[in-house]
């Protein structure tokens, strides 16, 4: 068991592109830390540097007290779970689990005992004699986990371990992972691009983009107080609505939405509103006119895509394949989530109320969050 420290770690490939740009981070002993971000943000590179599969261009990674520069992967006493599991195809499940112990010259009966323990814990007893090709995706995933567990390493490194599973199994394994961590309490660094995994699994979340840590905090912190536009746009599903706005005379104006904001001077801002803060219950709150395009009923809730007056701002976290809904002229795409008691139909114009305390403001030039008093979770 050990803590992991990134000390100004930089990694550049061929001297130009920075996969990792001056990352400083401390993972305390026993913490479940998530590195989350879009593909190419450097999260996997960070993990591979801890594993010793890549060397940092500059900086230092420490596991426990020891600097890991120049230490080979096998001497780091860490275990890694790969996205494609990387099970040895020519070995049985038993041999896959035992391989790491065998390489470390563990006595035979000790190997048997530990493999037995882990296979019982993960429900692999029936499959010890099978080969990876004869297992289902979920079973392979368990073997990959088991291979990491059996070594009793100082830390676990996981590179998108659930992304090859189907949706149902993923939810199940997610809970299982959390249970295992609660049970064993081993320091874990977990890489994912799925912000739901990040929110549900992590004790602490590092939101990464372009090789930099954009924000480090608990899942609640990164959700409730996003440090900048990128985090605001990345965390949360459906994504936060981001509108261009201006501060004038103590009020923010964005399209037809106006609300008081305290003394911020005159400046351009970005107004961020979570979809679940735009609801039909007006009740004296600031309102916005919302034109409905698409309605997605989800049982308890309904997700409504449409447009409001004003214009959008990009956070940089939008997925490439996202297809913008057809928006006419000077209107901004927006999404609202509310109780399914009233289900609007396409073409409707709704008057939605917005909770002012839950509106986020960002500097239009730097993208950094503007501190406001009186927001939930902030004060």
């Amino acid at each position: 068991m050990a803590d992991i420290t990134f000390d100004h770690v930089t990694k550049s490939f061929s001297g130009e592109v920075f996969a990792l740009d001056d990352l400083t981070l401390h993972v305390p002993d026993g913490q479940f830390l998530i590195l989350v971000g879009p593909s190419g943000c450097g999260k996997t590179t960070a993990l591979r540097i801890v594993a010793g599969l890549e060397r940092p261009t500059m900086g230092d990674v420490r596991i426990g007290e020891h600097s890991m520069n120049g230490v080979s992967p096998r001497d780091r006493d860490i275990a890694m779970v790969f996205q494609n599991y990387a099970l040895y195809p020519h070995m049985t499940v038993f041999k896959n689990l035992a391989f790491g112990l065998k390489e470390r010259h563990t006595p035979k009966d000790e190997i048997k005992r530990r493999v037995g323990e882990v296979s019982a814990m993960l429900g692999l007893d029936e499959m010890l004699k099978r080969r990876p090709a004869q297992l289902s995706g979920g079973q392979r995933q368990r073997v990959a986990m088991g291979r990491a567990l059996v070594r009793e390493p100082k830390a676990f490194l996981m590179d998108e371990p659930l992304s090859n599973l189907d949706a149902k199994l993923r939810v199940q394994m997610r809970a299982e992972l959390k249970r295992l961590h609660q049970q064993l309490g081993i320091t874990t660094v977990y890489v994912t691009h799925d912000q739901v995994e990040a929110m549900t699994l992590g004790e602490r979340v590092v939101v990464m983009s372009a090789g930099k840590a954009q924000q480090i905090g608990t899942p609640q912190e990164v959700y409730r107080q996003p440090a900048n536009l990128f985090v605001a746009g990345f965390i949360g599903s459906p994504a936060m609505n981001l509108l261009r706005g201006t501060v004038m005379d103590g009020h923010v104006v964005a399209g037809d939405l106006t609300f008081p904001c305290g003394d911020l001077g005159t400046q351009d801002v970005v107004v961020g509103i979570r979809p679940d803060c735009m609801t039909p219950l007006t009740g004296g709150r600031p309102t916005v006119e919302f034109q409905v395009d698409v309605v997605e009923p989800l049982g308890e809730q309904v997700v409504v895509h449409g447009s409001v007056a004003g214009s959008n701002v990009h956070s940089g976290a939008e997925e490439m394949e996202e297809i913008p809904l057809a928006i006419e002229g000077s209107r901004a795409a927006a999404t609202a989530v509310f109780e399914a008691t009233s289900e609007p139909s396409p073409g409707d114009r709704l008057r939605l109320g917005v909770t002012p305390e839950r509106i986020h403001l960002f500097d239009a030039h730097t993208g950094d969050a503007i501190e406001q008093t009186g927001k939930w979770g902030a004060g």
Partner: protein
Amino acid sequence: MTGQPLAATAHEVEHLRKRERRFLFSPWHLVLIPIAIAMLIPLVWMLVTSLQTLGETRQYPPTLVPHTLQWKNYSDVLRLAPFGQWFLNTTIVTVAVVIGNLLFCSLAGYAFARIKFFGREVVFILVLATLMIPFQVVMIPTFLIVRKLGLIDTLGALIVPNLAGAFGIFLLRQFFRTLPVELEEAARIDGASRLGVLFKIVLPLSGPALATLAVITFLWTWNDFLWPLITIYSPSHYTLQLGLTTFQGAHQTVMNLLMAANVMSMIPVLLLFFIAQRYFIRGIATTGLKG
């Protein structure tokens, strides 16, 4: 009532289709069959001659059907020449060269495939470039080196220079690069050394490539003639290919015995080819090099 016969018909159709697939005729066969026959004629001629009397072999036009089968040609070969010794020599050399190639080409191929080191690409291209140099060009320098090593007229002269080759390095490097690198990374994290990764993970997964290399090296070494000819003098160190020439004199050739010896020397090669044909063809297909 109609369901039952229909099902049977469907089954029959499937059966017919299978048959069709087995005897599928294509116009290409009109071209391929004559070529195949042309390729077979020398082999048939060899087999026929090996069963003729010396007189028959000298008839003109040559006869393709012997009057009597002279099986004693085969026992004559074994009686007149140390054929068993040559067979043993060839086997020793071939086995040693095959094992050497599997071992050393694996090591070099793995280094070129996975380990990053300064000048890797340049060295690899140099290794590949040696494939373009005809053997006749390096024959004399190699001879001088082998003589310095004191190996002339020993089986060592046939083994040592052939223990590794550019072809094998290239073949295995190409194959190793197709294996998922995560397997090797997982093994390294699990505690394996570079050599451990090669021997416990990479090689067990490289069966087809290793088999291909073994088969091709076997054929090359077994059939090699020129290099043994210039390095081996004593008949007791002859390989089969050298031994065959003793039936070929300056003034006359004992054709029936030569062909009988030829047939016997070809048996292991033919056997291997039939068993491992698949790997042999794959080797040529994957590397684009001649076998």
